[in-house]
């Protein structure tokens, strides 16, 4: 009787140790230690292709990388159009996707303002103001992003949906990825933004 009690105790205590050991190996050394070892990480979902949304996205993205953060920008839906090279006039694989690109001209130079665009006059004025004030243009910021190692990930599904081919995208853009890859990156990130 006593022996069996003893073995039960042994068993539970052993399981306790195993469980403890498992928890330690799952999270690295200690939760605090892991936080210190891993580089800070930021993921921005660039969902909008508007000038006044993508501009701050690129500012934060490049600055994050300058701070040594592991930075990823996931471009999806309307956010994909600015990633298309300026010289690609029309994207799309059928009448509807071609019409979409016709009404919403792709390219970093052709972004519109979400408010007071006034047929492009608003966006032009904003860019002129920025130029006069020596604020970096989105194109310059994208170059900085690639140079500083920001991962620019286009969304594979959106590309197919909108009829945009990988060869139509600007240099420095990564391979198209899926939502799960973006989520896995967001799961590891201290900062996640949806702009």
């Amino acid at each position, binding site marked *: 009787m006593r022996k069996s009690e003893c073995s039960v105790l042994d068993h539970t205590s052993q399981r306790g140790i195993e469980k403890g050991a498992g928890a330690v190996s799952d999270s690295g050394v200690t939760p605090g230690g892991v936080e210190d070892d891993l580089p800070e990480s930021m993921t921005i979902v660039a969902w909008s292709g508007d000038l006044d949304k993508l501009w701050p996205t690129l*500012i934060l993205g*490049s*600055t994050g*990388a*300058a*701070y*040594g953060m592991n930075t990823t920008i996931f471009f999806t839906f309307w956010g994909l159009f600015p990633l298309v090279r300026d010289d690609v006039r029309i994207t799309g694989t059928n009448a509807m996707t071609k019409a979409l690109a016709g009404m919403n001209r792709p390219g970093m130079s052709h972004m519109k303002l979400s408010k007071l665009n006034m047929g492009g006059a608003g966006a032009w004025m904003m860019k002129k103001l920025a130029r006069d*004030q*020596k*604020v*970096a243009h989105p194109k310059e910021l994208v170059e*900085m992003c690639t*140079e*500083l190692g920001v991962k620019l990930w286009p969304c594979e599904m959106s590309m197919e949906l909108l009829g945009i081919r990988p060869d139509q995208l600007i240099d420095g853009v990564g391979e198209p990825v899926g939502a799960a890859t973006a989520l896995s990156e967001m799961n590891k990130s201290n900062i996640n933004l949806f702009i």
Partner: protein
Amino acid sequence: MSYEVHLSIDAKGQKCPMPVLLTSRGIKKIEPGQVMVVEATDGGSKSDIPSWAKDTGNELLESTIEDGVYRYVIRKS
């Protein structure tokens, strides 16, 4: 104090976030222990460069202003 400067970055006239971006690009070009000077006119750099240095573990040796130009002396660690 004077230091042997290995790299000078001119970020004068450029607005946020360019001074930090140029600083970050510059630090990659020098070796640990070497010193870099960054000059900027953007007022945002006053808080950005010290916080950048703190967060990236590089040493801000000096931070001065003269005739509207901020001058930061940074040692790569």
